[in-house]
């Protein structure tokens, strides 16, 4: 009951996000306002109907309910977010395609089934970017920030939605304040990013739209050729910087902002590892590009751009990296498995987990040499409890199992090996672009593969367990 109340409430909150595209539409005199108004009406009415009969029930949310609300909400929201795509005449999309586009937006994946973005009405384009922006920091974190009545339940929702293995380090004593702080940081980056794009030469609409999908590590663009459309080094460098920033744990940004001090970053071992991974990857990509591909004289920036874009799971492109020589395409796709830091807007397994798995492997090696030694797993100088290490291993194995099953399922729908592999990686890591048939989008893959991709995107965004726990008997046996 309290679940129904909260989902209803959140749905009403979400419905207001369909009003801004109407304003955008008015500015650019699009004819799409009806479909947005219609979607808004449906969403708010259904939200109200769900909320009204149970509005007086104020039972505290338990941890179990938190999973339920978050999973339910992402699924419900993805579906309601699809309504404008489905109803707008200009897009002419099936239900599957609409839901795919909506979920891809909210989960900050950035895979698209639309071709001919450049000819779509501005309001629809804006709506896609906005979906990514809302999904980036987490729409539930936003709800926690502005709906104080969630109370302690807010913590349960926050825990179920925020990525990363250690979720108990609140920035402030109150969860509402923590959520607000995160959104303030997020909002500030978005504004700075939009201004930088604008100054580098984008028009106001593109600057705002791309800042949304950059800071959210989304990857949606308003052009078919993504950032490549602008063919502008300054824009690419700005994108690189903000993608990198958005892949850092937002708690670090918060502390830096609060203490007016940047040393926090260097003291944080996840950040250092994240930085090293991106650096080494960029060097390899650039070196291989120089060695094997001499047609493009912007190898340096192109290499750096793709290394950052794919490793942070953003998915912006300036050229078709699927056709790059040698190991490059697969190398980049594999990098997206690592993804960004915990507590960032990026997807993937997260750097901290990879770091812990590596440390655990080192520990096993040391144990072989010194069988009686007591060797803690440490990040920096802080020992990590075995409970966390276990959870990381559990996560890692379930990630691989889910990946394998989805890969097989994709191939059953008729995709070839490369396409299927990259399609699963692109969705479960919330990356976006893939190889083979999907290098220019998911528009040509079979219906079934699209649904598998939708599931993959949700699993990836909610870090698998939040969704998976709902289908286990343990969860329901109470």
């Amino acid at each position, binding site marked *: 009951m309290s679940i129904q109340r909260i989902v209803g409430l959140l749905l009403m909150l979400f419905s207001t996000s369909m009003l801004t595209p109407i304003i955008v539409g008015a500015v650019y005199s699009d004819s799409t306002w009806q479909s947005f108004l219609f979607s808004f009406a449906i969403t708010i009415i259904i939200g109200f109907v769900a909320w009204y009969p149970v509005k007086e029930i104020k039972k505290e949310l338990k941890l179990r309910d938190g999973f339920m609300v978050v999973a339910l909400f992402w699924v419900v929201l993805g579906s309601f977010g699809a309504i404008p795509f489905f109803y707008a005449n200009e897009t002419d999309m099936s239900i599957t395609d609409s839901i795919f586009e909506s979920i891809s937006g909210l989960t900050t994946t950035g895979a698209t089934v639309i071709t001919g973005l450049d000819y779509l009405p501005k309001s629809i384009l804006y709506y896609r970017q906005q979906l990514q922006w809302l999904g980036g920091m987490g729409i539930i974190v936003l709800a926690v920030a502005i709906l104080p009545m969630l109370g*302690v339940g807010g*913590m349960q929702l926050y825990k179920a939605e925020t990525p990363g293995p250690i979720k*108990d380090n609140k920035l402030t*004593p109150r969860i*509402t*304040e923590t959520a607000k702080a995160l959104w303030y940081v997020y909002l500030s980056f978005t504004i700075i990013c939009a201004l930088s794009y604008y100054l580098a030469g984008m028009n106001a609409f593109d600057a705002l739209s791309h800042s949304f999908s950059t800071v959210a590590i989304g990857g949606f663009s308003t052009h078919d050729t993504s950032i490549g459309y602008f063919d502008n080094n300054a824009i690419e460098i700005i994108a690189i910087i903000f993608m990198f920033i958005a892949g850092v744990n937002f708690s670090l940004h918060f502390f830096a902002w609060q203490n007016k001090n940047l040393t926090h970053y260097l003291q944080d071992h996840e950040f250092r590892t994240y930085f090293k991974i991106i650096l080494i990857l960029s060097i390899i990509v650039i070196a291989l590009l120089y060695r094997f591909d001499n047609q493009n004289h912007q190898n340096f920036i192109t290499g750096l751009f793709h290394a950052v874009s794919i490793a942070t799971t953003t998915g912006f492109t300036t050229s078709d990296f699927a056709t790059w020589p040698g190991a490059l395409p697969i190398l980049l796709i594999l990098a997206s498995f690592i993804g960004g830091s915990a507590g960032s807007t990026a997807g993937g397994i997260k750097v901290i987990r990879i770091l812990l798995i590596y440390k655990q492997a080192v520990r096993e090696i040391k144990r072989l040499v010194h069988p009686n030694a007591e060797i803690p797993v440490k990040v920096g100088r802080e020992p990590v409890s075995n409970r966390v290490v276990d959870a990381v291993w559990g996560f890692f194995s379930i990630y691989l199992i889910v990946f394998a099953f989805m890969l097989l399922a994709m191939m059953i729908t008729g995709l070839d090996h490369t396409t299927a592999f990259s399609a699963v990686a692109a969705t479960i890591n919330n990356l976006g672009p893939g190889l083979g048939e999907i290098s220019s989008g998911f528009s040509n893959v079979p219906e079934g593969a699209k649904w598998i991709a939708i599931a993959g995107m949700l699993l990836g965004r909610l870090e698998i367990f939040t969704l998976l726990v709902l289908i286990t008997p343990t969860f329901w046996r109470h």
Partner: protein
Amino acid sequence: MKILILGAGQVGSSAAEQLSREESNDVTVVDNRADILDELQDRLDIRTVCGHASHPDVIKKAGGEDSDIVIALTDSDETNMLACQIASTIFDINTKIARIRSAAYMHSKNLFTKDAIPVDVRLSPEKLVCEHIEQLIQYPGALQVLEFGNGQAKLVAAKVSHEGLLVGQKISALKEHIPNTEGRIAAIYRDGQPLLPDGDTIIRADDEVFFIAAKKDIRAFMTEMRKIESPVRRVLIAGGGHIGVRLASALEKTNQVKIIEHDPVRAKLISEKLDDSIVLVGDASDQELLSEEDVDNVDVFCSLTNSEEANILSAMLAKKMGAKKVISLLKRPSYADLVEAGTIDIAISPKEITISSLLAYIRGGDVVKVHSLRRGAAEAIEAIAHEEKGKSAVVGKTIDNINLPQGCSIITIVRGTEVIIAHHDTVIEKDDHVILFVTDKSKIADLEEIFRKA
């Protein structure tokens, strides 16, 4: 208010729970047991920091620099004192509260001053529990006694028995039974559920009635609820710990006190400390010993050992053997619920008593006293009505016209030496002590606001 709680033990956790429920408080809890903090963080909207409570870097991490209050509630007196010292010296925190158990510290003069160990408020659970039991012994039949307006008005909880004069009658009949007294029934708990009484409510046997009255009228009210009990003469205390000894020395001049202690060495020590009490060496659950010491003639049996299970069992045994009233010290509130329905008359929770007095200090300002009633289901608050430049949200108004938050009601006013029972047309005057009943704790902050503006 930013509150830093050091120590997540029973009192620390409870204090965090109560304080974080009020929206205006930001609570951070420090402890060195990560598992307890995890559990706490799951339940409450607070921040937790794992580490040693008196280490400066831990306090810094817990936001010591902009905290307003530090409450040191760890198990160690020394850690608590040191933490307050550090909070004062390094972080310049304004209010420092510490739990200090050891009487040796409490009694030393000039120790807790600004330039020695700056602890503003020292909580001694033993002292508080002791005072609580003394009150109960002073008013036989009472389950809880709270003082307001410097002790002029008292709020008493009592269980109604069949012999009570008011049983089966409406509350309005009270006026005819005992004219010329000022007092009223503030709340009734029936089968564990609160009931908001009005003049037509009929009192039944086994109701738990909270009434407030002037000090001199308490006895008259008590006879309305239950058969008058003769004043306590003989007290038997089981457990010669700090609380037991303290209680014995407080009561031994007016009552006949016996105290049972199982450790011969300790028994010898306390027998030297006490003047008129009889110290018995033995086990409090030893039937032979109890019957030899005439437990059937005892007015009050208090089991105050460190083991709550032993307290329950020895109290049950004493009751069965004929003790008139048994009081038992219990740490867990769930046990209190269990046993109070059965053979044990009163369960005393040091945790609850400590928290009551802790909250009173924190809420400070014009709210001078906050008491949790019977396991925290409701609170009674005493606030002073001030007036500033003729402006006030309460002074000069009738009770009807005061905009109180929901779930709050004014029950009594103490004006000078007079206790006035609040009616809807009573006008509040400057410097009145207003006593309120609050059933919804989240409203306490609003209430403070009303009286602060005053």
